[in-house]
């Protein structure tokens, strides 16, 4: 069983290699984003060395780590699923002996691992030479970060799957997908760390799954969290990872029942 899913990851690797241009352009886009947000934040800091309890170096680290993590957890599962529903290839997927959504998630993982190994890790090394960022050296924090990043991947993929599955009900959900992407980038703390939000907004966000996508892993690595808080955050991530399966399963079951294969 595991064997099958490992094979799926391998195939995704091969497919990513088949489209190398995408990979190169992705690299440029991410480097630009890191650069832009770094200079933006440094302009906001100005003469101050600390804003909101975060030092400039921590902020720079946060920006670099957040974007490099995004390269791992980001995927286009929503678009892929929606497309397969629209053009009817989902039918072909259903004659294979596997769980369609699980397979999709593993393909996403293959894509994420590809970018992590070939892009994030070397990228982070280069960025740490160019910008004054500070990566921790203690293994505990890295471990916390890795676990949290895996959860981030799970939560983000689940949200993507949910968005993609909406195509069963609204045939053209490109708008929804775009809105979701902007929303996730903003609410996950990728663009602005959540403790920079007004207090009421921060409280609302703490009840939503989005913080688990970017804010939690990036904070663990850039600022560090006390043990107790670290476990609390990981627990919240785990909880969302479990909770989000429920709507997905419900949606998937209804969808399969009322599936009409487009185009015969």
């Amino acid at each position, binding site marked *: 069983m595991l064997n099958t899913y490992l*094979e799926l990851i391998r195939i995704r690797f091969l497919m990513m290699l088949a489209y190398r241009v995408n990979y190169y352009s992705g690299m440029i886009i991410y480097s630009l984003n890191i650069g832009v947000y770094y200079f933006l934040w440094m302009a906001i800091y100005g003469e101050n060395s600390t804003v909101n309890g975060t030092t400039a170096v921590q902020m720079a680290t946060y920006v670099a780590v957040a974007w490099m993590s995004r390269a791992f957890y980001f995927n286009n599962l929503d678009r892929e699923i929606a497309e397969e529903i629209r053009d009817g290839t989902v039918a072909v997927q*259903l004659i294979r002996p*596997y769980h369609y959504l699980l397979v999709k998630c593993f393909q996403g993982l293959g894509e994420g691992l590809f970018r992590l190994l070939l892009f994030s890790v070397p990228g982070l090394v280069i960025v740490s030479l160019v910008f004054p960022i500070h990566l921790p050296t203690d293994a505990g924090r890295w471990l916390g970060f890795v676990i949290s990043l895996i959860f981030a991947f799970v939560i983000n993929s689940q949200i993507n799957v949910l968005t993609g599955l909406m195509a069963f009900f609204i045939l053209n959900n490109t708008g929804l997908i775009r809105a979701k992407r902007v929303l996730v980038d903003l609410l996950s703390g990728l663009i602005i760390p959540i403790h920079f939000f007004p207090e009421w907004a921060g409280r609302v966000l703490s009840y939503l799954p989005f913080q688990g996508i970017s804010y939690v892993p990036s904070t663990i690595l850039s600022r560090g969290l006390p043990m107790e808080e670290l476990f609390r955050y990981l627990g919240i991530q785990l909880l969302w990872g479990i909770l989000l399966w429920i709507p997905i399963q419900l949606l998937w079951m209804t969808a399969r029942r009322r599936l009409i294969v487009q185009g015969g």
Partner: protein
Amino acid sequence: MRSIEARGLTKEFKVYQSRSGLTGAFRDLFNRQYRTIRAVNGIDLTIEPGEIVGYIGENGAGKSTTIKMLTGILEPTGGCLRVNGYDPHREREEFVRTIGVVFGQRSQLWWDIAVKESFRLLKKLYRLSGEGYRQHLDRLVEVLEIGPFLDQPVRKLSLGQRMRCELAAALLHQPRLLFLDEPTIGLDVLVKENIRRFLKQVNAEYGTTILLTTHDLSDIEALCSRVVMLDKGNIIYDGDLERLRTQWGDGRRLILELKEEVPSFVLNEKTRGLSVKWEGEGTRYTARLEKGTTVSDVLSRLVPAVAVQELKIEEATTEDIVRRIYREGAAHA
């Protein structure tokens, strides 16, 4: 255990109807009207292991919908369905291991990677291993002649090459039942023939049951012993091809050109007692042979008396017959 057993199999779709005009479109925003369409209307179908069955019908007759229910993609609205002993929709993941499916219009190989890699993934998916698998694969590659392009990505293959790879992919796990949804669509004559020969071989060697939908009736003639015909969601014919011909075909026609003019009553006189209808006059005549009359019966009586210059025997092709059924509808069946 039967390959397919369906009783009262029904599929209904809810289709949403749009009202016309701008006001209509606006009203649709708040209150949609639905209409229920019965794509498959309570059909009974039993297929025994080892059969090759042709499933035909006009566009929109419900063929694809049936296939999608039989393969577990769609959930039937009503009726009983067992395929290979499974309930296809409920036990999908277990069930699909026992079937192979080829959709002529959709590729199920991975578009961007080499055919070989697709096979490797399928091998893992179906948990195949060992010497048996290797031999089977080698044989598929050899018979389908796909060896030379195993290293190419699917998107670079021609349709004929791709189709042969699809067949190999559908048969890798040696399924007991093979569904083919228009497998020869858009292929040239040679490839078609190749594929037909291969399917016959698979059926004979492994006893694979095959259910085939097609619009190309020569596929049916070449492969199927049994035909199931669907019209507006109902089965209007289920039986062998020969009976379809006798039931629907209007017999053979014998076209004669005589050396000299002969009045038609002479011919009628000569063939008295045989069920033959003569048409024409002068030197050209057409004889319609009804059931039980053979060409040699007619000729043996005619030739001693009348000088025949040329003769031609015509038979309604399956295509003619099917065209007639489609046109005249199920009323006669």
